[in-house]
């Protein structure tokens, strides 16, 4: 037995071990992580995660969920929300495998990013979205849309515009929820309605709005969003969300997405 060779090989076995470093506790006290629900420690999912489940449990008419949007450029907070909704539209267009629509959205993302001064941060992504849509590379179009969302948010944070970064996420959530509830309105299922059970994420968005400076929080559009998100909260709290509740959430999110399109909000 060549013990020298064995000694050389042993570290390789330990590195490749599938065993965990330590057994995690089966139960923990989450109150020690009170900061987890603060703004920086909340992960906001992308619409693609929800749409993926909808595809698994049914056959949504994604083309029917697309919309034609006339971009109206108003104040920065309106543009940030609109940008979020347009990126969400990109995920819908990917589901519909609509190349031209995705390419249009890639250009719209660039235009809106330019309107709030972060054009350079998404230029590469926008071009990549168009290029990959042309090839029908839908998986990577989705990644680029996700990346565009993060790039815009990061660019806004670098400009000390964190509030606008949050509004981009909120816009995406509103449009994503509008689409989700539209699909469920047409074909309700318990499994589908379960996807709406996001009370903690809604509380997070409510918290973001509450933390905004008054000059932003008290604008007509943000105030409208704040009030209507409070209407949504009780509708999505329960484990079972009824067809009637889905319809109400759809009405609210549709109204808000329409308001975001208005230049003078």
């Amino acid at each position, binding site marked *: 037995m060549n013990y020298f060779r064995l000694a050389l090989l042993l570290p390789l076995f330990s590195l490749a071990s599938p065993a*965990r*470093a330590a057994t995690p506790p089966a139960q923990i006290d989450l109150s020690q*992580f009170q900061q*987890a*629900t603060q703004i920086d420690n909340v992960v906001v999912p992308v619409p693609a995660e929800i749409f993926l489940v909808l595809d698994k449990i049914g056959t949504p008419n994604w083309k029917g969920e697309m919309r034609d949007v006339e971009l109206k450029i108003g104040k920065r907070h309106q543009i940030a929300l609109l940008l979020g909704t347009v990126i969400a539209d990109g995920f819908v267009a990917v589901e519909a495998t609509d190349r031209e629509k995705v390419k249009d959205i890639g250009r719209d993302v660039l235009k809106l990013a330019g309107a709030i001064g972060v054009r350079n941060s998404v230029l590469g992504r926008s071009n990549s979205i168009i290029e990959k849509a042309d090839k029908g590379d839908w998986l990577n179009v989705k990644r680029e849309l996700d990346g565009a969302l993060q790039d815009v948010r990061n660019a806004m944070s670098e400009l000390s515009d964190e509030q606008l970064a949050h509004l981009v996420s909120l816009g995406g959530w509103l449009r994503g929820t509008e689409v989700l509830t539209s699909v469920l309105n047409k074909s309700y299922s318990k499994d589908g309605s*379960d996807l709406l059970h*996001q009370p903690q*994420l809604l509380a997070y968005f409510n918290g973001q709005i509450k933390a905004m400076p008054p000059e932003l929080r008290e604008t007509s559009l943000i105030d409208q969003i704040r009030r209507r998100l409070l209407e949504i909260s009780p509708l999505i709290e329960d484990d079972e969300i009824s067809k009637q509740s889905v319809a109400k959430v759809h009405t609210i999110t549709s109204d808000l997405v329409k308001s975001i399109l208005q230049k003078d909000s």
Partner: protein
Amino acid sequence: MKLFVRLLILCLTLVLPAWATVDDAISAAMEAADPYVKDGFTVREDQWGGDLAVGEKKAFQHTLFKGNDYWFFIATDTIKAEVSVHVYSSEGKLMDLEGWQKGSHSGTRFRPPSTGSYFLVVQVEESPEDRTHWALVYAYK
């Protein structure tokens, strides 16, 4: 001028490695996720990271959707350090489906029994450093 240049180099020496290691941890975490792309997983383009002391934990609240399959990957660029990520319910119950540890990389799989809020708890298990940089990414299908 010579004093200025020396001070500048000193500052860069102190600052740049710290910046570089968070990025290195992100690269390592993305590498850990890469093999799962072939299995049909989509890796998010967003990452989370920071630095922790040995035994110190941090939690992220995440809305996860029933019907999806998730993998969470955590990595560090510190040699001989080990980091972990586990999924807990809102009631603090461990929810991991399976997991693995490979040196400075770790992965945890989770399938939500219902849509809702879950907590990703990251921890530095071992490290030769006082504070260890880490990065977290996730994939879904």
